[in-house]
């Protein structure tokens, strides 16, 4: 229903978009014993690392093939080879995720052939899966890179086997935080199902202290678990961008799937729990029946503040979709929406228009709204326009607890409801003070 517009301009000002390789590395970080490797010049890795370190406030393992001017001209095979050997020797990873960058994609390095030749030369790499995700910077955005990595994972690792009726695969897209995944894990497990998350950021980037220092990810989905994905009875894809990966599993192993666009808001969570109940043949646990009543109560308490408010959002497509649906379910109007990349979701958005653009576009469109929703870079715009900002997406530098922030399930919906509701409430009080300040 929405008209998708792409402003015609030659310069992006205050980009909302991040690179595909950053997204792919984020996905890879949800696997245990992983070190993502960027095939590019060392800055490509350094920038991505800084973003992730500052957002999650965690040590992030990321490596680079350190391409130079000369190796770019001659071809990067040696650099890939040397990087793989160095990593295997020094970091002892259980799995490596290899992403390309604008540099090596422009050059046209044939990574699949590289990997085959390198493996032929080095039998010591036999036991280490290397997942390759083609992620040129000049195409797509973070969400696409994340999806590409997940697709590569499910193409390569899972093996066929007998179906295990309790086991479900959960493909979790880039719109979900580690806190979200923990909540989802708890819900799914409560139905007696055994989920395997691909990837599981909830285990790796939730900000827990490990007992020992490790140069690779300390936790996440293991290679062994990934292999067993072929035995799952069902695939739950979270976020439209995960549809491709779900299809691959369907094609490879004949595993049926369902895509859930969002798990925020009463109806969305209801549908999810109903599906889990059918899937597991178990009733919805008492705990969630209770939470549902809490959420309904919270909706009653907060709806005064949401009704008829105008909100502008700058988010990646999947996250935009879920947030728009949730806000509308509370009676909120969508004033403007800006996103990073194409998605079949955009046209289906129940709003007038959506812009694939940057934060300059957003700043123009957002004038006159009551609330902004976006990452930390929207902070400056919020100040200039004097409109409160609720932070969602990535990067978020100026708030604590991004790892554990939860917006899914009844509990997460309440967190979002109160978080946004409190901003509206505060703004309203400010306005009242302003009107009656002189009395």
């Amino acid at each position, binding site marked *: 229903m929405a008209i998708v517009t792409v402003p015609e301009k030659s310069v992006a000002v205050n980009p909302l978009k991040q690179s595909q390789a950053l997204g792919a590395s984020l996905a890879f970080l949800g696997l245990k014993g992983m070190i993502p490797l960027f095939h*590019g010049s060392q800055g490509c*890795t350094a*920038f991505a690392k800084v973003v992730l370190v500052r957002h999650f406030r965690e040590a992030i393992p*990321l490596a680079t093939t350190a391409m130079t001017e000369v190796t770019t001209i001659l071809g990067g095979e040696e650099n890939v080879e040397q990087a793989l050997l160095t990593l295997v020797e020094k970091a002892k990873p259980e799995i490596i995720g290899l992403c390309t960058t604008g540099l090596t994609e*422009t050059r046209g390095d044939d990574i699949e052939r590289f990997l085959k030749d390198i493996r032929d030369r080095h039998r010591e790499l036999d036991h280490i899966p290397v997942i390759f995700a083609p992620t040129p910077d000049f195409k797509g955005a973070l969400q696409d890179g994340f999806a590409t990595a997940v697709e590569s994972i499910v193409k390569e690792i899972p093996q066929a086997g007998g179906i295990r009726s309790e086991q479900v695969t959960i493909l979790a897209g880039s719109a979900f935080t580690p806190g979200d995944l923990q909540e989802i894990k708890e819900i799914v497990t409560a139905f007696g199902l055994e989920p395997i998350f691909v990837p599981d950021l909830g285990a790796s980037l939730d900000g827990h202290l490990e007992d020992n220092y490790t140069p690779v990810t300390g936790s996440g989905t293991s290679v062994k678990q990934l292999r067993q994905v072929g035995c799952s009875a069902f695939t739950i894809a979270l976020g439209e961008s995960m549809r491709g990966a779900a299809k691959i599993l369907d094609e490879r192993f004949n595993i049926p799937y369902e895509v859930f666009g969002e798990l925020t808001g009463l109806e969305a969570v209801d549908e999810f729990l109903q599906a889990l109940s059918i899937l597991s043949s178990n009733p919805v646990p008492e705990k969630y029946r209770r939470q549902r009543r809490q959420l309904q109560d919270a909706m009653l308490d907060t709806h005064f503040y949401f009704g008829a408010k105008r909100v502008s959002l700058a988010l990646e497509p999947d996250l935009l979709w879920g947030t728009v649906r949730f806000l509308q379910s509370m009676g909120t109007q969508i004033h403007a929406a800006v996103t990073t990349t194409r998605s079949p979701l955009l046209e289906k958005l129940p709003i007038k228009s959506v812009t694939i653009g940057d934060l300059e576009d957003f700043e123009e469109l957002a004038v006159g709204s009551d609330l902004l929703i976006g990452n930390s870079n929207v902070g400056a715009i919020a100040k200039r326009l004097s409109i409160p900002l609720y932070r969602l997406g990535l990067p978020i530098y100026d708030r604590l607890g991004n790892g554990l922030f939860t917006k899914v399930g009844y509990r997460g919906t309440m967190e979002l409801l109160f978080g946004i509701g409190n901003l509206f409430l505060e703004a309203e009080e400010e306005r009242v003070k302003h009107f009656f300040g002189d009395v």
Partner: protein
Amino acid sequence: MNTQKKVNELLNESGCEHNQQKKGEKKNKSCTQQAQPGAAQGGCAFDGAMIALVPITDAAHLVHGPIACAGNSWGSRGSLSSGPQLYKMGFTTDMTENDVIFGGEKKLYKAILEIHQRYNPTAVFVYATCVTALIGDDINAVCKAAAEKIGTPVVPVIAPGFIGSKNLGNRFGGEALLDYVVGTAEPEFTTPYDINLIGEYNIAGEMWGVLPLFEKLGIRVLSKITGDARYEEIRYAHRAKLNVMICSRALLNMARKMEEQYGIPYIEESFYGIDDINRCLRNVAAKLGESLRDSSASRDLQERTEKLIAEETAALDIALAPYRARLKGKRVVLYTGGVKSWSIISAAKDLGIEVVATSTRKSTEEDKAKIKRLLGTEGMMLEKGNAQELLRLVKDTNADMLIAGGRNQYTALKARIPFLDINQERHHPYAGYVGMLEMARELYEALYSPIWDQIRKPAPWDEEAGTLNNFMSADEMFSASIEEVF
């Protein structure tokens, strides 16, 4: 386009002490060595050039390349401005596949025009990236044409990431200023007390703690290169009487070339620690004094300087007393690069803190000698460092805390070690006398936080585990070098 000749020239900066030790094995290779695949972690030349130039606050900084270069990095620097905010905007041509195939020159030209039209900057800096260098976009020509069209300076900065390290990129940034900016305008007036600050980027507003000192001495900072700078002031930097390089050899090529081209002498100083800031003020006064014809004016300047130092030091001593009492005898491991190694040691010593080990990466022989003197016989010097080495070192030396750059922050914190960030992403200014007090406060708070006992204590049901002793025992740790660039 940049050529290998330029790269070599900048790598072998003759003013740099890294290159004055070329006697046999002593030859210091730290600038010319290449990043190792699978090991390197630092930024690239493009990153370095941005660091050096983005603090020019009223210019637009346009990245010509695909999204990663600008999209993943803009807005993350802690360099502050007292006025214009344009430098905080992220501008990029955000190249698509089509641009890569058909070339990005037209898009770049249009982008500059659009920026001019919408933001009217004093100047536009255009940064080449790996991809635009690879496809051969003639950025110099586009900048020239665009500058003529809009009547505003457009400065090409040709430091694509793959030509080298962040440090090299810094120098390329300096070259761009020398080639296109410095010497293109004249100041309204000059005084015998005009200096430039070079290599101070006003991280966390650090420079603002120091500028009032010069002002009190009647010394005018003509150009700040580049912290909180306006484009205009850099244009007339060639009229200063003295260049003061702050805590960094990154822009040494600028200081040396300005000496060659304009006869401006330069000195290298540091704002960290009481001794260093005192020495800095004295040296600046002495050097400026040399160029004064009137010897009584020169003497007057020295006297004013001594008086200021006495006043500031006395006031600081009183303010620091309570911190000194609590910090005395604490042991720290320091992990930084270059000059900062010794300048932070000197600051720590002022507070009675013992630096038990430090890295000497990127330090010159002269730096190392200074470090040795400051560390004493027991202090350890770490030639190569990485997360594993660092943790082991903290354990072996029984240190109370780690002082390093932000990238090592979580290595330390996850190992339950108190940490102080001295790198560029931090929010606290440590320069000058006010910075010294700030640093003392931060050190005190990091060391004496009540959290340390709690997070080191095993759960009551877990008493026997003694997990923390296992902490450094893992030998299978990453030994790739973790590069911190300053």
